[in-house]
């Protein structure tokens, strides 16, 4: 019997990138800026292409949840409560997330304007402060660049932790149902489709 050989693509291994990202930010917080790729690329796909090709094929985080949850059996695989993927929760979480993103940008602005000072710490779940001073010892960039790094890294780590929690409790990629980027890109695609 001829064996069905599945063709593998490079972008199926982007879950490695998710791990590398957090490792890099552990040693130097400026690497946190690379996470902007995961913010901008899906939006470009959605706005220009009118698709969710990023979510569907390139999202390293979603792939990581699949690798850990399914391949390494770290997920119960149980159905998540329906409200977790309901429209009001998805859009509510998106608004909450964008508000927190805005707050983080404002804190960066405070450091930029001189009204605030650089705080070498990350904040988990928007509440718990964790010292992270080893990740920055000055650079040729002004302080606000590092402040954004700490803020953005906090956001990325917090959302990954939430994703891991729901991965363990429910299905592997439960995070995808209320991922702010996913909600935003699907919203854009739906708007684009109504135009035609």
């Amino acid at each position: 019997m001829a064996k069905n050989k599945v063709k593998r693509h490079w972008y199926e291994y982007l879950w490695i990138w998710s791990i590398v990202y957090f490792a890099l930010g552990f040693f130097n917080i400026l690497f946190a800026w690379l996470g902007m790729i995961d913010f901008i690329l899906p939006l470009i796909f959605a706005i220009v292409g009118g698709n969710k090709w990023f979510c569907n094929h390139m999202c390293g985080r979603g792939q990581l949840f699949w690798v850990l949850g399914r391949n390494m059996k770290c997920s119960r695989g149980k159905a998540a409560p329906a409200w977790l993927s309901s429209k009001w929760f998805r859009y509510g979480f998106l608004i909450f997330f964008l508000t927190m993103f805005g707050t983080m940008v404002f804190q960066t602005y405070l450091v930029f304007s001189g009204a605030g000072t650089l705080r070498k710490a990350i904040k988990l779940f928007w509440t718990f402060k964790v010292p992270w001073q080893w990740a920055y010892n000055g650079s040729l960039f002004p302080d606000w660049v590092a402040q954004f790094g700490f803020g953005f890294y906090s956001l990325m780590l917090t959302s990954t932790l939430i994703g891991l929690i729901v991965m363990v409790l429910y299905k592997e990629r439960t995070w995808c149902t209320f991922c702010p980027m996913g909600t935003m890109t699907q919203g854009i695609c739906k708007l684009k489709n109504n135009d035609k």
Partner: protein
Amino acid sequence: MVKKKASPDKDRCVACGVCALQCPRKAINIYRGCYAVVELEKCVGCGICSKACPANAITINEINQEVANG
């Protein structure tokens, strides 16, 4: 003849694409980033997509083939 087919709920679908990745027959596509669409001719109703779907948006329904074919 009654056959099992996957049927995704457009309103619940978050278009994450897990179903399309898991489908062993490549019968599922994400239509313009909005929702999953199943090609019924390819679907064998195995239910792998339904198990993978994080939004529980896919049910496996029994479809009467004669009626479906007209």
